[in-house]
Structures are given as C-alpha cells and as structure tokens.
C-alpha cells in the first residue's frame, strides 16, 4: 500500500521500492569509502532476517548487509563516546541503535561482521554515523557463525 511520504528507491537487486520515511537513515558524512552516499534505507525481509539490507538512495548499485550485533555477540559492548552521542543529538539511550556491517562470502562460514566500525543511529531523528572504535577486543572481521570469536 502506498503511503504519503514514502520515498522511492531504485536498487539493482530489488528494483524500485517504496520506503516509509521511518526506514530512512541519513549519514551526514557518508561512510568511510562512500563519503558521498548519505541516504540509506534499512529494510528487513522474511528471507533475510535477522539480517537487514541497507540500500543507498544515491547509488542504486550500492547495498550493505547489516545485523544487530547483540544478537550474535550478546557481550558486545562498544564504547560510544559522549561526542559521538552528541554529534547525532542522541539524548536518551533508547534512541541509540547499533548495527554491524556484514561482509558476505561464498562460504557462509566465512561471513564476517565489522564490530570495530559499528553504525550508530539516532532512532529519534534517523541520523547516523559509522564509528571507528579504538578497542582491541574488536576487529573488522568477526565470523558471524562462530559468534564470539
């Protein structure tokens, strides 16, 4: 059903999709390596759950796979600085959403998530940034099917 305010995205994988505004996030500085891509839609579908697709509004060929890191690594404790919270105007802890970007591989066992560069989203105003944690516990490649390592 089409609603007012839906935003149309074109993506090579999904074709044209109508995205409700509450699924759009804005990265004012883009992502490292993709600094010009600022608007993304985060979508769930039954086949992909618990993974999400994050589709670029600016580049129909650009898509990332995300996961809620706490689902796979319940002990994950990214240290988010006050400046990071402030930069997204996050006032309440409940407004802070964290996702990890997943790197796919031909072998499912080799699929990894980036726990040292999580995405931080302010759920209240849908602005986001990718953090770069200075934390030896986390790297850019944690195997998703070996949760914890």
């Amino acid at each position, binding site marked *: 059903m089409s609603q007012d305010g839906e935003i149309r995205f074109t993506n090579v994988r999904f074709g044209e999709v109508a995205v409700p505004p509450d699924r759009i996030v804005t990265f004012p*500085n883009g992502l*490292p*390596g993709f600094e010009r891509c600022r608007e993304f839609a985060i979508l769930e579908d039954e086949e992909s759950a618990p993974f999400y697709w994050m589709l670029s509004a600016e580049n129909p060929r*650009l898509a990332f*796979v995300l996961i809620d890191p706490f689902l796979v690594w319940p002990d994950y404790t990214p240290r988010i600085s006050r400046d990071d919270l402030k*930069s997204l105007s996050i006032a309440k802890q409940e407004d802070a959403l964290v996702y990890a970007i997943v790197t796919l591989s031909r072998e499912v066992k080799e699929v990894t998530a980036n726990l040292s560069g999580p995405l931080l989203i302010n759920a209240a105003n849908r602005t986001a940034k990718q953090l*770069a944690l200075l934390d030896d516990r986390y790297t850019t490649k944690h195997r998703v*099917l070996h949760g914890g390592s």
Partner: protein
Amino acid sequence: MLVLTRKLGESIVIGNNVRITVLDLQGKQIRLGIDAPPEVSVHRGEVYERIEAENRAAAQVGERDLKQLSRALKTRKP
C-alpha cells in the same frame, strides 16, 4: 599537500572550527590535541583506512542472497 612547520605549543586552524595543537614531542612520537565540533569525525588514519577497506569489501554483495546465511544463523547451536 600543504606543508607547515610548527613548534611545540603552536597550532594550525582548519576552517572555522578545527584547531590542531602540537602538545608534546618525544623522539618519533608527536602528541596532537584536536579541538573540533562533535559533527566533525576525527580518526587515526590507519583506523579510518581499515574501516574504509572493510566497507568496500562489504559493498561487494553482488548477486548473493541471504537465504542460506539466514537459515544457518537461525539453526546454529548456541
């Protein structure tokens, strides 16, 4: 690249609101103090590059679908 020489305690200003100050020099190590508004991200170069490289790898989703992966994760042993 713009190259500037600075002494201990001196600083450079970038734009209207970023100031980088040389705080300390010890052998090959230099301590820098950075004053920037919260919306300006400051990263160590190598950390930024690592995230950038991983993002580029992660963007190579190609034609892969998530069915198999999703199933594998849902049925994994705790």
